[in-house]
């Protein structure tokens, strides 16, 4: 077994500890940036949904502000964001490099995207359901939790899947600030030193990761669609 692997992936086997570490780094970045981004994106998506004109907590100034900010951040290419927010990163994380240094730009890069995804998932909720809930004496908070969120589990699972996968892509670029991770690993060895087997191994790991995310998301979405 060991022999066969060494034959197919000669360079990978020699960089095995590095390989494991880069998987670990990517995993850490996705979990942290994803976790924080999920909370923010979900909150912003909900706020946009309920404060929109005609929403249950209509608030034009707040809606306009959040809407504009979301658009602004969505239009900044991630590679620029990565370096542009370094001062902010230093304030929040104490450092602007390495895995901790990548978390802030990753959050900033994925939150606006996820916010829009959440917004469009919640927008699929039939207005009639909101009206019915209001007529039953539900508070705005109950409408958010018991109608918007509860009735959108399927679309939200899909939105999360898409965002998680795109986040995985963003982490590859985070290598630019020395964050490590699979993308960095592939470029450093696979590209710079022309170690083809390392490139392939990275691709295989990413395909497996994406598939796991996708299958999980699809399963949740399917379970909650009637």
């Amino acid at each position, binding site marked *: 077994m060991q022999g066969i692997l060494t034959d197919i992936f000669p360079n990978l086997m020699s960089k095995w500890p590095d390989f494991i570490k880069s998987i670990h780094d990517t995993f850490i970045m996705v979990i942290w940036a994803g976790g924080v981004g999920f909370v923010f994106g979900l909150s912003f998506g909900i706020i946009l949904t309920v404060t929109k004109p005609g929403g249950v907590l209509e608030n034009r100034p707040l809606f306009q502000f959040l809407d504009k900010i979301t658009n602004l951040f969505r239009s900044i290419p991630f590679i620029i964001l990565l370096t542009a927010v370094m001062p902010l990163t230093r304030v929040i994380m104490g450092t602007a490099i390495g895995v901790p240094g990548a978390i802030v730009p990753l959050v900033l890069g994925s939150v606006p995207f996820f916010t829009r995804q959440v917004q469009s998932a919640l927008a699929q909720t039939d207005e009639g359901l909101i*009206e*019915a809930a209001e007529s*039953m004496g539900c*508070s705005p908070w109950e409408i958010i939790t018991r109608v918007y969120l*509860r009735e959108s589990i399927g679309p939200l699972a899909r939105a999360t899947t898409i965002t998680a996968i795109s986040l995985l892509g963003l982490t590859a670029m985070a290598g630019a600030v020395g964050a490590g991770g699979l993308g960095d690993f592939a470029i450093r060895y696979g590209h710079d030193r022309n170690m083809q087997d390392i490139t392939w191994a990275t691709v295989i790991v990413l395909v497996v990761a994406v598939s796991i995310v996708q299958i999980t998301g699809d399963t949740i979405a399917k379970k909650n669609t009637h």
Partner: protein
Amino acid sequence: MIELTDIVKTFQAGAKQVDALRNVSLTIEDGEIFGIIGFSGAGKSTLVRCINLLGRPTSGSVKIDGTDLMTLSSKELREERKKIGMIFQHFNLMPSRTVFGNVAFPLKGSGLSGEEIQKKVRKLLSLVDLSDKENAYPSELSGGQKQRVAIARSLANDPKILLSDEATSALDPQTTSSILQLLKKLNRELGITIVVITHEMEVIKEICNRVAVMEDGAVVELGDVFDVFADPKHSLTKNFIRTTSNLSKIEQMVADGVPGVTPEKGEVLAKLSYRQKDVSEPLISTTAKEFSLDINIILADVEIVGGAPIGGTVVILHGDSARIDEAVKYLRNKNVGVEVIKDARNPY
């Protein structure tokens, strides 16, 4: 008792202003089934949404059992809304919840234990005849069944009032009838006040005690269903009634020259409509004898509205010209509406 006083509702649609309600005042008594009819855009939904303040009137007052809803805090208003059930044209059931989950939805926070909720939901489902569908999802139900679930849900907090906004408009006639019978039963057995919005006179005829006819944001006619049917004042009301009565077909038949409905020379084609609650006298045969006329009934349509027979006949009167005039006068004196559709006595 629901008291709506001087309700005005204005929508701002861009630069244009829409007066959806222009000074509407209505009082709906406890335990009645009150109908609101009007064409699309008349303001029916806007008006009914004022009753539970889903839409706040621009001005006016909304009182329920003396409580002015407009002065309540949002928390108090939510408590008040729990006592006002509402059902909708498109049912508005939560697709991710089962029938049980939908009916139990409004019971959260009611202080009932899980066991009590289960008991209550089962009771409501048996009330609407859907005990066997407890675990079904809305997508697995027919339109009529969905509306029954929605009705059960609207009754969960034992409301005193049930608002129905076109609840039968998406249903076929037979299902409509069964839902209307259910509403009637709820009114009878629970004493719940029901406000029914519709654009079908059939619905009004079948279950309402009183009716308001709306046009362009105003109530143009209001009264007991029987009186309104027997003697509609406003042209819009007449239009609505025409849609439900077979007698109105006569005009079309005459226009189309259908054989048998065209009076011969010297004859009069007339529509007789009964306006009194007691049509016990054999009016037609009495008139025929009294004035030595032949009265030929070519169409008759009598039905029960508001618990009393209503309708009339289309007849051809044959006989002496002067006697026909006298007969018409006699019938009018007996409070029978006589509408001469075609008079073939005078040479053209």
